[in-house]
């Protein structure tokens, strides 16, 4: 794969929070124009990885490239410029509570373009229509359900037609219908707008149904990667465990801790 085929290239990256190592020498590429899924157990650092790509936190070493541009230790102005080409859908939606849904979606357009209000209105309504919330334009975020808020946030994330959209757990809190809608939406946005999508999730079935390429993250690094078909064929126990959602196996389900028995019976001191 030549360099510019990847929109994101992470190489030899290390990151720790306080004393805990989250990523140890991880390498990960996101092919341009594809839907790339990042799966892994809860608390392993998937959200952290998206924040690293967005430049909100800096790795302790290694490199992160976006559109062939190094993001680590870049100056703030260039970072902000790079971010205009990224859209991020946060786990909680992160709608601005004092603005209506319409104004939330219009917000990045108003901030970064000089388009007249009549055109902004059309763009916003189109984005809202795409996520099925045109009727909710005048509601406030507090009046939306969790799933609706997520979709409204998605409309906002695509408002500026970014090159890269990062979805943090887009499926949680969605009913089966809107789950299907979002699955299809991610695929359609990806293909119609020619964007690249990164989907972080642990809903194995949904993810495998839309992803072109999948990374499984665990043990501070990538433990497996490939197309969904390749991963389904995998026989390595830790991957089988994850794909079938079993808690026990080589991938630890527990947060690192002392020996369980020892801690239970060691109440003397």
């Amino acid at each position, binding site marked *: 794969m030549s360099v510019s085929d990847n929109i994101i290239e992470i190489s030899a990256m290390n990151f720790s929070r306080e004393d805990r190592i989250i990523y140890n020498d991880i390498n990960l590429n996101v092919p341009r124009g594809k839907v790339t899924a990042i799966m892994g157990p809860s608390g392993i650092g998937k959200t952290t990885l998206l*924040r690293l790509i*967005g430049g*909100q936190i800096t790795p302790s070493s290694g490199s992160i490239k976006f559109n062939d541009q190094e993001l680590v230790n870049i100056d703030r102005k260039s970072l*902000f*410029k790079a*971010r*205009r080409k*990224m*859209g*991020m859908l*946060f*786990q*909680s*939606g*992160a*709608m*601005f*509570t004092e603005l209506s849904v319409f104004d939330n979606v219009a*917000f*990045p357009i108003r*901030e*970064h373009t000089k388009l007249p209000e009549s055109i902004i209105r059309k763009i916003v309504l189109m984005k809202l229509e795409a996520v099925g919330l045109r009727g909710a334009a005048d509601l406030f975020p507090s009046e939306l359900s969790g799933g609706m808020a997520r979709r409204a*946030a998605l409309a906002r994330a695509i408002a*500026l037609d970014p090159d890269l959209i990062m979805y943090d757990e887009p499926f949680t809190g969605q009913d089966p219908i809107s789950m299907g809608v979002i699955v299809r939406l991610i695929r359609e946005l990806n293909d119609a707008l020619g964007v690249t999508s990164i989907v972080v999730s642990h809903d194995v079935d949904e993810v495998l149904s839309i992803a072109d390429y999948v990374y499984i993250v665990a043990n501070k690094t990538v433990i497996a990667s490939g197309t969904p078909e390749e991963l389904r064929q995998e026989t390595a126990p830790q991957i089988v465990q994850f794909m079938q959602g079993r808690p026990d196996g080589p991938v630890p389900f527990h947060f690192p801790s002392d020996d369980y028995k020892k801690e239970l019976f060691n109440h003397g001191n």
Partner: protein
Amino acid sequence: MAISSIQQMGRNSLSVIAGLGRAAFMLVGALKPSGRGVKLLPLLIKQLYVVGVQSLIIIVVSGLFIGMVLSLQGYTILVGYGAEQSLGQMVSLSLLRELGPVVSALLFAGRAGSALTAEIGLMKATEQLSSLEMMAIDPLHQIVAPRFWAGVISLPLLAAIFSAVGIIGGHLVGVDWLGVDSGAFWSVMQSSVEWQEDIVNGAIKSIIFAIVVTWIALHKGYDAVPTSEGISKATTSTVVQSSLAILGLDFVLTVVMFGS
């Protein structure tokens, strides 16, 4: 035991210094010119309303009562010396030099400061600040700066209103109720209140309090641990630290301004 408490002391002072550093960085980042001045004006106006106008009622009511109490207490003391004609001087100087700036800053910390901390802390907890960053908009410019300027502009005006209403309250009790001569009340006040000595110094005090209270409130919110417990702690510490800062600074400023 001794060693560990010394260690703890060292750790605490380090974290205090680190906090001050972060607070300074926040303020510098917020006040750095952003090149989007015009877009920030509506935000400033909105914050002036939220921070300033919505604090008016508590300021006016408190000012009125403080002025009335001051007048009543002053009268009972002054009348013993037959000096109740000087009531206007006593009421106005107490308000302009001390009570106006100090009490309105304390009320402001409780009313507006705590609200600012909670609001920004909640924005942080719900990832609104992160999502601004991801939209290539600096939350320091978008969120912190307008609130800072709104606080710095509002509090001195509120303090002036507090003093003015307090004087009216003093007049109500002293003149209309206790029967001090109205002409004497005003003329004594006019001849004793000095522009530089009293009004300007009082204004300087409240501008300094405004900067300190707003800064503390914004920093506590911006630096809050993004959980409900973290936000409630941050809100409490905004009120406690602002109040202590106001009272401590008031002493220092009074010594500098009126000490010699």
